[in-house]
């Protein structure tokens, strides 16, 4: 009956090993990162004003007909201040359009911010009430959506885009969508 004893004593060891494996893999994942529900779907329809000109409106039909980035930001968002210089740099360096979605912000503050820090955006949409933000499932700026030329969302990145994120996440994914970028090198 030694077999059974071995079996019983090995149970705690098996449970312990299983827990170690589970915890080990949980360590790597960020529980605050939520999967986007919009992957594979069109950018929701919208009709919002131009940040630079409240009289003018943008709709989803004004979105670029080639792969682009949709960056959700606001002046009240601290991490966005960290991200901003990187976006200015990448916008100058790469032929990838970046559209700004100014989320629940004060227009004058946002404009002053872009004047001071530089404007990386092809154009800026003012989402004063946060309606498009909620339709996109935005829960924490900055968020960046990678969208293809047909307006379909392929990826969402939550958090600051710095050089590492650009080189390892954003650029490879945009390259997949836009074959003309094949020779574009990663930034140093």
């Amino acid at each position, binding site marked *: 009956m030694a077999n059974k*004893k071995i079996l019983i004593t090995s149970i705690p060891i098996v449970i312990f090993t299983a827990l170690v494996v589970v915890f080990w893999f949980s360590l790597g994942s960020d529980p605050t990162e939520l999967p986007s*529900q919009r992957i594979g779907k069109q950018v929701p329809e919208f009709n919002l004003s131009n940040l630079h000109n409240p009289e003018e409106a943008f709709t989803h039909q004004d979105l670029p007909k080639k792969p682009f980035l949709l960056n959700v930001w606001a002046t009240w968002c601290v991490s966005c201040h960290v991200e901003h210089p990187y976006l200015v740099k990448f916008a100058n360096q790469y032929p990838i359009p970046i559209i700004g979605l100014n989320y629940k912000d004060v227009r004058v503050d946002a404009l002053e911010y872009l004047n001071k820090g530089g404007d990386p955006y092809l154009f800026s949409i003012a989402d004063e009430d946060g309606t498009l933000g909620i339709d996109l499932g935005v829960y924490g700026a900055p968020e960046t959506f990678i969208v293809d030329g047909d307006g379909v969302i392929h990826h969402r990145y939550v958090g600051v885009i710095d050089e590492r994120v650009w080189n390892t996440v954003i650029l490879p994914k945009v390259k997949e969508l836009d074959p003309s970028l094949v020779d574009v090198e990663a930034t140093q």
Partner: protein
Amino acid sequence: MKKFLLAISLLLSAQLAEAVIETYDFDNEEQEQLYYEIISELRCPKCQNQTIADSDASLSRDLRFIVQQKVKAGETKGQILNYMQERYGDFVLYDPPLQPANYILWFSPLIIFLIILVVVVIRVGRRTIDPETGDVKMNDTHSNEKGE
């Protein structure tokens, strides 16, 4: 006595001030109840372990406003929860739907309970009780390891 009452009323008002602030007008009591029912079943995407009823995050405030608008427009609870789920995923639902991805969540307690039940039945079933003395005798040779 006056001082005592004053102290009590101060304490009570402090409690009230902690509750979430906006008051919305509803057409009838059912709508108001539905509103409170829905906001206490939605999880705040920003602040993870709070319902949008508890949370003071601006996103929760926006979502409460949307729920209020939709309740007043006569939408059902299912429609409103569906609207939120389409945008924020199962994560926003404190009562997630049954689907293959979370079978383990729903069924593991049941499976563990069944395993325990089976083990207990097997072990207890092996005992015999001497009807004269009332002594419990273990027929299972492995269970009296202490005596070995």
